[in-house]
C-alpha cells in the first residue's frame, strides 16, 4: 500500500521538511559548469582559489539545481504538485566548494487557494541550504502549486 499523496491541505504554515545530505564533488561541479556556466572558478581549482570564491566553486545555478533535487526528495516526490509559477528570491550567500556537504530544510510560509483555479492551492516555501559547518549557503523563497484534496479522489466532490 502506498502512502497517500500530500495535498494542499497538508502544507500548513510552519510545516518543515528536512533535506537529505549531499556532497558535491569536483567532478559534478565541473560537469555542470562545462554545460551551463563555464567560468574559470567553476572549472578549475587554481582559478577558483585565485577568485573571491576561494576554491573550485559550484555555479549558483548548480547549487539551485541541487536544492531542487533536495526539495524533490523532501516532499515533491510524494506531493500532488502541479509545478511552480516562479521564485521570489534566490540568494547565493556563500560559495559552495568541491567536497562541501549540503543539507538544510524548507518550510511553508503561507498557503492559499488559487482564485483562478479553485481546484489548486498555492503554497509558498522558504528553503535554506547549509554546508557541513552549518553555514547558510543559499536561501530560496518560491511558490508551488498543489492540488486540493477535494480534487483528488472523486473529482466531482464539492469543495
Amino acid at each position, binding site marked *: 500500500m502506498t502512502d497517500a499523496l500530500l495535498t494542499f491541505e497538508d502544507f500548513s504554515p510552519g510545516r518543515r521538511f528536512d533535506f537529505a545530505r549531499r556532497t558535491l564533488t569536483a567532478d559534478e561541479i565541473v560537469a555542470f559548469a562545462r554545460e551551463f556556466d563555464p567560468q574559470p572558478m567553476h572549472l578549475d581549482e587554481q582559478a577558483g582559489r585565485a577568485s573571491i570564491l576561494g576554491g573550485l566553486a559550484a555555479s*549558483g545555478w548548480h547549487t539551485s539545481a541541487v536544492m531542487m*533535487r533536495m526539495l524533490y526528495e523532501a516532499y515533491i516526490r510524494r506531493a500532488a504538485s502541479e509545478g511552480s509559477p516562479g521564485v521570489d528570491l534566490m540568494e547565493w550567500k556563500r560559495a559552495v566548494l568541491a567536497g562541501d556537504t549540503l543539507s538544510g530544510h524548507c518550510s511553508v510560509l503561507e498557503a492559499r487557494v488559487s482564485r483562478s483555479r479553485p481546484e489548486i492551492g498555492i503554497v509558498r516555501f522558504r528553503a535554506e541550504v547549509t554546508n557541513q559547518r552549518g553555514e547558510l549557503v543559499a536561501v530560496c523563497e518560491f511558490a508551488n502549486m498543489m492540488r486540493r484534496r477535494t480534487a483528488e479522489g472523486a473529482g466531482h466532490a464539492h469543495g
Partner: protein
Amino acid sequence: MRMAELYPVGQAVEIGSLVFAAEDIVRFAADFDPQPFHLDAAAARRSLFGGLCASGWHSSAGWMKCFVPFWAGECRRLAAEGIDPPKLGPSPGFTGLRWLKPVFAGDTITYSVTLLASRPLASRPGRLINTILCAGANQHGEPVIRFESTVLEFA
C-alpha cells in the same frame, strides 16, 4: 569602462539561443528535477503542461549558458576596440523569477539581458552592483522566463 557606460539602461540585448532537445530535458530532469512531466512524454501529455517540458531550473540555467559566451565575445570585441571591458564578479542571486510558459521539447529559447540600474556599493568602495533583467522567449516570440539578477562589478 563600466557596464552603465557601455549598455544603455532599459535597452534589451540578445545574448543567444538554446534549443531544448527532449534528451537534454530528460537528462537535466533525471539529475535535478525528476517530476514526471520533465521525464516522460506520455506522463507529460496527461499533466497540466500537456507535453514534455524542461525543468524551470533548466531554462534558468540556459540563460547563463548563453550569457557566458556572449560576455566573452563582448570582452573580445571591446578589447579589439581598445576599450577596457567591465570586470564582473559573482552574482549574489536573483529576485522575481517567473516561469511564464512551459519550455517544451524542441523549443528554441532566445535569451536577453537588459541593464536596469547600476550603483556603487556603499559598504565596499570600488565595487558596483548592477541590476539586470534576464529574459527568454520561445520561437513564437512568447516570453517564457524572466528574472532580475544582481551582478557585482569591480570599478
